[in-house]
């Protein structure tokens, strides 16, 4: 049933245009990096209350999607959904590409990028960041091995693929824990944050996979059986409901604790409430679910693509909301008192990103995109035809 793999030709004007566009993004990112490095972080919108801004939103979104992009591989290797085996290579490779893009942005936004290798030399094993250094390098290694087994040593695929699946769960838990284990900031102290990050990675990774597969196949004039897309749609619906569930549980547990009334009300009605309701819930959960459950839209490829776009944007909103709202909430140095000072004590932080930060973040997207474009051109990442077995029927349709 499986068709042969082949690299794309990559000679069409469209390919080169896309290549140039992504290369342009990378150059813009490089320019932004040099500019910020030369002038100090004062040229960004970040300040002493909100020290992680738009570049981190881009970076962490890419990292979250990197672990999610492995879904299609895991679906076949770990959960034996054989129809997706043909996308295993694509999936593992996409993970690597997104991981590199995300890490690049994270590294280039450091205050002292010249010292970026020091975490490899001096390690503080209590730091969630040090753990993440191991988690990211380990994940990258596993993905490369996974790819290798898919190309050459099929007998080890199951083993490595399962290890990679386990690792990506721990990896995203680690990423989420950066914002889940900080007791000093009221918003960053929830145990549900890390699992929510895992759920978000599942939705956004699948959505990005759907989009990339569809458009890559479309532009290279390869066949892609609609039923494959609908299969992924069903997985995405399930993941979306998981996200909704975790978001609700998080708010439920927090609202049960009177000490969190203030901060939770601030999240739901404060200056970042628009991002929470419109971005995290609207764009990220409600609209895609409504589209996918609609009998007409949910059963059309175009509808699934639209919903996927919403899901990717929603993941971005989720990360942005977690970071920005979490940091904006004023430090509560003296609970029960109002506090004022020249250092904005007792005030919510404000953050207005500058163009440089946007350029740096998009640079990371450009890096990931370029790696993807080059990868599918020089390696046999994609099946020549995306086929579903004859007579295969999806168990469920909207």
């Amino acid at each position: 049933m499986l068709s042969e793999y082949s690299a794309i030709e990559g000679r069409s004007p469209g390919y080169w245009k896309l290549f140039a566009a992504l290369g342009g993004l990378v150059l813009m990112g490089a320019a932004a990096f040099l500019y910020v490095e030369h002038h100090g972080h004062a040229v960004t919108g970040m300040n002493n209350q909100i020290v992680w801004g738009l570049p981190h939103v881009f970076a962490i979104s890419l990292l979250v999607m990197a672990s999610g992009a492995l879904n299609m591989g895991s679906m076949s290797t770990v959960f034996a959904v054989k129809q997706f085996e043909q996308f295993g290579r694509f999936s593992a490779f996409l993970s690597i590409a997104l991981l590199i893009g995300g890490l690049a942005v994270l590294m280039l936004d450091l205050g002292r990028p010249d010292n970026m290798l020091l975490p490899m030399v001096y390690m503080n094993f209590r730091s969630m960041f040090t753990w993440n250094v191991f988690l990211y390098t380990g994940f990258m290694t596993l993905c490369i091995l996974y790819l290798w087994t898919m190309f050459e040593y099929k007998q080890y695929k199951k083993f490595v693929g399962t290890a990679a699946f386990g690792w990506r769960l721990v990896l995203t838990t680690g990423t989420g824990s950066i914002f889940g284990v900080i007791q000093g900031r009221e918003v960053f102290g929830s145990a549900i944050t890390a699992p929510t990050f895992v759920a978000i990675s599942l939705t956004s990774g699948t959505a990005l996979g759907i989009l990339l597969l569809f458009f890559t196949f479309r532009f290279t004039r390869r066949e892609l059986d609609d039923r494959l897309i609908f299969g992924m749609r069903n997985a995405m619906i399930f993941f979306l409901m998981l996200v909704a569930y975790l978001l609700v549980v998080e708010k439920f547990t927090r609202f049960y604790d009177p000490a969190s009334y203030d901060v939770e009300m601030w999240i739901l009605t404060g200056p970042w409430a628009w991002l929470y309701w419109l971005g995290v819930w609207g764009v990220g959960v409600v609209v895609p679910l409504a589209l996918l459950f609609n009998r007409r839209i949910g059963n059309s490829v175009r509808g699934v693509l639209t919903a996927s776009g919403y899901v990717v944007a929603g993941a971005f909103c989720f990360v942005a909301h977690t970071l920005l709202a979490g940091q904006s909430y004023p430090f509560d140095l003296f609970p029960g008192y109002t506090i004022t000072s020249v250092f904005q004590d007792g005030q919510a932080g404000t953050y207005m990103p500058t163009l440089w930060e946007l350029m740096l973040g998009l640079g990371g997207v450009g890096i990931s995109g370029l790696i993807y474009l080059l990868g599918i051109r020089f390696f046999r990442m994609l099946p020549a035809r995306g086929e579903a077995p004859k007579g295969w029927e999806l168990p469920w349709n909207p």
Partner: protein
Amino acid sequence: MTMDRRTVLGLGGAIAAGVALAPGLHLFAAPANSTSPDSGSAQPGKRWGMLIDTTRCSSDCTACLSACRTENNVPLYGDPDRDIHWIRKVELRDQNRRQLPVNLPVLCNHCENPPCVHVCPTAASFVRHDGLVLIDKHRCIGCRYCIIACPYKARSLVFYKTKPPRDANPNVPIRAAGVVEKCTFCAHRLDEGKMPACVEACAKADKNAMIFGDLNDPNSEIHQRLLKEKTQTIRADLGLKPHVHYKGI
């Protein structure tokens, strides 16, 4: 496969080391006290701490703030969001407005369990033998995770390139853009046997609201007063065991 196994082992080691080091985090042996006359050393048995008597602190006095800026070459950029504050004055009002407002300086609390040190990936933030929480700026990569972790807002990123002021204090380096900095309890002065600049300025301004000393020394003024007077620390609920105590809040 070797690479992979190494990473796994590394992670196991990380967990083991994290658990082993968690309670005390003493990576260096206590230094032998040099007898040479020109050496000042951090004494391992000491625990520097501060007591701030807010009843003696008035809203119009900023002696400690300006002393800190001069002593430590802390620039003021005039950009309120990004200015560096090692120590700042804060005004408290209870939410029902039933008490008079309280004024007090807030600075790094040099916690026993400092969250900034826990999260620092390169161990640039560390606890010295005498309990000071310091930043090794040679090692700081500017990731800002410590600023996220500190509940006291005691840390600032250096957002601008700075030039040393004309009458700079040569004993304290200025800071390169992109590193994080904060109050050091004037470690360089402590090592010379002097008091921190803010404490000295407070006494000079005839307020005597800041008492500084060794918490472990039963004869020190701060030890005695903490025994006798009712004091509190900021956000004691977080379990960080700060070494800056406040009286009169």
